[in-house]
């Protein structure tokens, strides 16, 4: 079984306990405007352009079979309509100014890469985190990967937005030690506005995991002006208090480090005006959670 992923992050120390390797699968059913991994959203391979790296050697233009590339004042212009995403240009590019985000890999092959760091997982009680994109969107692949991890007796975590097939989630949960579950907004309408989808299934799935007795860490991105109002915080706190199995809440302050990534993908970044939360803001919000008796941490 093959999946498509866009990154493997080693010495990942903010996605669960211990030293971990995080596998980032490509493709997500949500389209959050603040997404800091824009290359994770599409299920298709995408070409990323790093114009600062280009030395204008022109080799990419030569190998392109559809004439989608042309040289324009020291960097490459790509005609997306002509491009077939064959990846030949990225392969020949000597500076990696063109890179393909997304590669297909079988679970078996991927395991070889993940097993390389076993000594660190063992020492630190770490393991593997499957993240995305959305792991549930590649449910069968995620399942096989987790099963293989369990055969190797590795600790497993799944970082999910919660939107996906409930039966698959239940199956996956059998091989998952810890869920990192994202809650962005509690109000269904507001959720739809900012992520493109309703949160009905997401909340159902959270309750499902809770009823299955799974260990859960809730992750809440803090996006100023979008979900940092008292109403949403109070609603999130209520939700958490009514969900058994939640061990901690991680507040993840919004950052704009991804702006450059949007540029590379030629995608529009819509949150230009948002201010990055300051330490005082984060302390205030975490205090609100804490006042409800919730174990809250700032950062992953």
């Amino acid at each position, binding site marked *: 079984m093959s999946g498509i992923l866009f990154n493997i992050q080693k010495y990942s120390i903010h996605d669960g306990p211990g030293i971990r390797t995080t596998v980032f699968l490509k493709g997500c059913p949500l389209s959050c405007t603040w997404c800091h991994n824009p290359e994770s959203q599409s299920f298709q391979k995408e070409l990323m352009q790093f114009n600062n790296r280009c030395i204008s050697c022109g080799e990419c233009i030569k190998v392109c079979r559809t004439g989608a590339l042309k040289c324009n004042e020291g960097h490459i212009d790509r005609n997306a309509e002509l491009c077939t995403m064959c990846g030949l240009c990225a392969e020949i590019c000597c500076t990696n100014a063109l890179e393909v985000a997304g590669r297909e890999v079988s679970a078996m092959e991927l395991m070889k890469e993940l097993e390389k760091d076993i000594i660190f997982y063992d020492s*630190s009680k770490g393991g593997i985190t499957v993240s995305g994109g959305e792991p549930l969107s590649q449910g069968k692949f995620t399942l096989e990967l987790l099963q293989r991890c369990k055969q190797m007796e590795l600790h497993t975590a799944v970082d999910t937005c919660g939107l996906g097939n409930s039966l698959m989630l239940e199956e996956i949960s059998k091989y998952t030690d810890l869920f990192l579950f994202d809650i962005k907004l509690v109000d269904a309408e507001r959720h739809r506005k900012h992520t493109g989808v309703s949160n009905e299934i997401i909340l159902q799935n959270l309750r499902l995991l809770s009823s299955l007795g799974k260990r859960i860490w809730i992750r809440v991105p803090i996006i100023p002006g979008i979900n940092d109002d008292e109403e949403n915080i109070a609603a999130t706190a209520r939700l958490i208090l009514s969900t058994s199995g939640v061990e901690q809440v991680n507040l993840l302050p919004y950052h704009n480090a991804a702006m450059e990534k949007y540029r590379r993908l030629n995608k529009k970044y819509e949150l230009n005006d948002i201010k990055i939360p300051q330490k005082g803001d984060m302390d205030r919000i975490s205090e609100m959670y804490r006042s409800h008796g919730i174990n809250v941490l700032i950062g992953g």
Partner: protein
Amino acid sequence: MNKRVKVLRQRSLDAEPTIAIERALIVTDTYKKFNGKVSIPMMRALTFKALMENKEICINDGELIVGERGPKPKATPTYPELCCHTLEDFEIIDKREKTYFRVSKEDYERHRDVVIPYWEGKSIRDLLLSNMTQEWLDCYYSGLFTEFMEQRAPGHTVADDKMYKKGMLEFIKDIDEQLKALDYNNDIDVFDRQEELKAMRICAEAIITYAKRHADKALQLAEEESDAKRKAELLKIAEVCSHIPGNAPRTFWEALQTYWFVHLGVITELNTWDSFCPGRLDQHLYPFYKKEIEAGTLTEEQAVELLELFWVKFNNQPAPPKVGVTLAESGTYTDFANINNGGLKIDGSDGVNDVTYLILNVIDEMRLLQPSSNIQLSKKNPDKFLKHAARIIAKGWGQPSIFNADAVIEELVRQGKSIEDARCGGTSGCVEAGAFGKEAYILTGYFNLVKVLEITLNNGTDPRTGKQLGIKTGDPREFKGYEGLLEAFKKQVHHFIEIKIRGNNIIETLYAKYMPSPFLSILVDDCIKKGKDYNAGGARYNSNYIQGVGIGTLTDSFAAIKLQVFEKKSMTMEEMLEALKNNFEGNERARQLCLNKTPRYGNDDDYADDIMKELFDIYYNEVNGRKTVKGGSYRIDMLPTTCHVYFGSVTGATPDGRKAGLPQSEGISPVQGSDTKGPTGVIKSAAKMDHLKTGGTLLNLKFTPGLVQNEEGIDKLSHLVRSYFKLDGHHIQFNVVNADTLRKAQKNPEQYKDLIVRVAGYSDYFCDLNEALQNEIIARTEHKEF
């Protein structure tokens, strides 16, 4: 730190390094009187005696541990018998921007009028260089290898616990017994032995005299002192200095002062590499600490104060001025005393004790360039110990570094040491494993592995000098595949190691015959027992090292040729050679292919790492196990000090995409910026090297502060270290500072005077490094927070 320590620490920081001509004058005077009339060991002993009896005694205001090598802090002697500086050297040393020493007009003149006329052409350096062959000299000046003993004496050894158990008077008894037992009928070396033992005896007496002179000076100062508290301290100093080092120390204070006099003795006798070092200080001090704490004669605060004052003494002694290639390979004020903490006890049990933690706190508070410090981490040591050290490391000034005590012991046992001697050993200098108090483990010079590849790719010729330094191993265009290249490289390594070792054999003999060190010999088993000098094979164990430099650059270069030329055929050998010759000008694409489309060492990628293993084995098999003239064995180390910068400066463009003249990779760290998979990738790659076959490897990881900002980060860093050590990694150190800060420091050095960074097995003030090295440190991959 208390007020006294603060003041003395600041004075040490502010003291300007100067040349002190005093030693050179005493040595010259003594040689004029005795040379030719007595045996050489006696000549050296009489010189040592004259120094101990005549050099100015310095007791600084407020200090408790006393004694300076020169007449004042950072006043640094010269050693004309080893290297007689020219007047031009003195001018450069005075004026150069980095690692300068101010030379007073008076000292300059006395050097000109007294020292030079006697020593010119007679120093060991002159003797040594005039005895080297043309091929050795060609290789040396082309940057194939360096030579450690060219202007500094062997040393490379560390004290064990004997001086804390026995006073010099007891050593004299041991010497007398050996003298009595000499066999004048049958032993053909009996005269040499007699002279060496007599020389040791004179030195033992001289160091007692030296301490007594401090006692006298303290008494004199006490008489003049109006402050009652200080008066009492001076009287106490006098009492301590009257008791030790003739007798064994009784207290914590006396133990520290004993070491300090011994230290000054060793570094005054000769300009030993890595100065000298107390080694396992926590082990040595613990019995005194425990006894006194229990008896109520010492408080923890007093112990800390004494330790901190002891630290200041090290910082007051910069490494004596170096010139030429030696300056290039080791451009620093640091003299490499490297305090060991933790590790195991002689019986193999956990060695961490209360003093270990005191010392860690002292390291943290003092933040001085010297002494360097490390922890010896065994699987038997508690995590608390590691974490305590990690919290200090996280503060980002480069100390302490972390060694794998279990691996160090295994390395030493593999080399033939007894398990007890190995457990009492540790690491010194940068990363070198040794049996403390029992071994002469001499670093003989760095070896430019990358240059050997360059010469291989030019059929034996060095393109920089145009000289045929190597053998003709054939035109690379004709090589039969990658194996052909490897075979040619192997032959060239053999060729150059042979040249290096032929030189070493002569140099070693020169030191054995003409420059014995009878004082140091008292301190190293079994010199007294054998009646043999440290420099002549008197130590129980004798090892010579040749330190390999540039394994990262070398590996990536071989990987690039293997993949791009032989496998993918994206360029021909001709094209590669042409690109190298032109420093990639006009063929940037070739450079980029090598940089970006070739597997690189440091990413846990077997393609590159298998090549590293192969190259390591070639080097190891060439050097390891060869015999030294002292009856010891050759071993390898993989460390560079600052030599990767010098070697880079004499090496042209390399197939890994490195441009001509730029630094090579450092230690066993990957090429700067080529490790893109994070710290676990670097550690996995580095651990594929068989560390246990070396006497030391050096791995440097650069971390941003964010990775270790809280306890969770500290915890994960600790696991990273434990994992590396499970894989038998020898040593790891962390630079926790971000590149932005370094760039700022480079632009505004005056604002960052105190910024200490880890260089390569030691730390240094960032602003004291030359620009190339600064840039290299900035370029080392900054492992960002994920």
